[in-house]
């Protein structure tokens, strides 16, 4: 049996299993975190239905959809990476991780572009708020939700890109056994989660209340 790093473990397999369990549990807490902002969206939808419609009509469906495609692709590339890692192919796994990270950076770049366009269009819920129609107040509140949700998701993406770079480095360096496989798997779990959060956000922001 391979030697574990921590003396509290019976074997390396014991250690890697435990690391995976830890990541799942952490993701459970993240579900509640994003769950809270989804709850806020639900409350807005019930109390300000027309405001949510007005706000949604100003979101950039094209950029949002391209981003969704990018993220889905990145999940695919990362799954490939995990498969390579499990098969012991360190270099290939590292390449997959970097490709995933690249797609993530692409997402972030487009998001930044989208934010720039949104600000230009007057979608910041401050004094210069542009949209006009039924329930402007509700549209403002919807935009609050939009900015907070996308900012927090974006932050998680940035952390994810960093984690992918770290996992890629480990995979490149070492023999593809034990810890390094775990690193790729655990980062894979995290990335899939961030992707899943986007798959929930995307319809809430761009689709559901679109007139």
């Amino acid at each position: 049996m391979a030697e574990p790093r921590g003396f509290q473990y019976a074997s390396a397999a014991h250690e890697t299993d435990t690391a995976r369990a830890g990541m799942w549990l952490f993701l459970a807490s993240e579900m509640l975190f994003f769950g809270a902002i989804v709850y806020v969206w639900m409350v807005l939808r019930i109390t300000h239905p027309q405001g949510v419609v007005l706000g949604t009509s100003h979101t950039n469906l094209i950029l949002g959809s391209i981003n969704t495609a990018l993220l889905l692709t990145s999940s695919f590339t990362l799954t490939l990476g995990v498969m390579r890692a499990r098969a012991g192919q360190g270099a290939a796994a590292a390449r997959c991780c970097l490709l995933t990270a690249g797609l993530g950076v692409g997402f972030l770049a487009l998001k930044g572009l989208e934010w720039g366009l949104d600000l230009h269009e007057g979608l910041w819920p401050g004094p210069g708020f542009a949209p006009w129609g039924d329930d402007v107040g509700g549209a403002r509140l919807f935009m609050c939700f939009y900015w907070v949700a996308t900012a927090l998701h974006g932050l998680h993406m940035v952390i994810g890109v960093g984690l992918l770079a770290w996992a890629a480095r480990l995979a490149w360096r070492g023999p593809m056994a034990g810890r390094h496989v775990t690193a790729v798997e655990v980062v894979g779990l995290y990335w899939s989660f961030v992707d899943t959060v986007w798959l929930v956000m995307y319809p809430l922001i761009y689709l559901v209340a679109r007139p």
Partner: protein
Amino acid sequence: MIQDLLTNAISAITGLHLRPASSSARETDALLFALIGGTILVLGLVFGLMLYYVVRYRHGTKASRDGSDAKSWRFEISWTVATLVVFFGLFVWGADLYVRLFQPPANAIRIAVTGKQWMWKAEHPGGQSEINALHVPINQPIELLMTSEDVIHDFSIPAFRIKHDVLPGRYTSLWFTAVEPGTYNLFCTQFCGTDHSQMGGKVVVMEAPAFQNWLETSRTSVGLVAEGQVLFTRYGCSGCHAAGQPGMAAARGSLSSVRAPPLDGVYGHPVPLNDGTVVIADDQYIRDSILMPARQIVAGYANQMPPFAGVVSEGDLVRLLAYIKSLGANR
């Protein structure tokens, strides 16, 4: 009555007095005393058993300890079920009281209360207004319609055993029927800033003749409805919502092309909205329609009414509300 005996006994022991002075206060106290009684019983059981056990079974005593590994689940089920039954009973009693505490009768006199840092203003239908005080007649249901001009406050009358939060941008309500003449404390009980502890006053319950007298001598205006009618014109509402003549804005000579929903008898009746839903035109609806009309457009009408948020004060809103409620009231 036992309840009066208990009230007086506890007052004698504690040196504090808070006789229940409203119709519901006595009911609240009844539940409270039942809870106190139950608590004393349970505490007697728990403390009693604990003391008994630690004395009888302390290290070194010869008390028999045989049979201590008997099956436990019979006890577990019994005390769990007993607890559930008692708790459910308390829940039902409390919920019933609560529901009635917040269902004002139709014949209640409505008084508008406004809270702001750090004072209370009460306005009677006849136009009398008071600061940090509330004069009410005895044996008459009173409903308080409350709002805040800034942060969340809470209007609390301990002698009546009632309170409710007072929110900005919303109306909340309380009702009571005072049954004992006297002067009672009024407190703000939701932390609202520096002088939260100073934001109180007195509730004065008077016999009918004395109250009439107070009304006469305190009249400061022609009454909320009449003042509301003046404001209805001054703010330009009548320009589109010509009272008594739905849609005949031309007769008033301004904004003649605007078609506005008629307000005659609207209060308390269903209003269909343009998204297909139907709402009842209550105080909150009228208020929102004045401050943020775009939120709820009446079916068949365009979104043309300008918002009056920041233009109409809380005090004026209360008067406009009173006036609109009085329109077509005999319908």
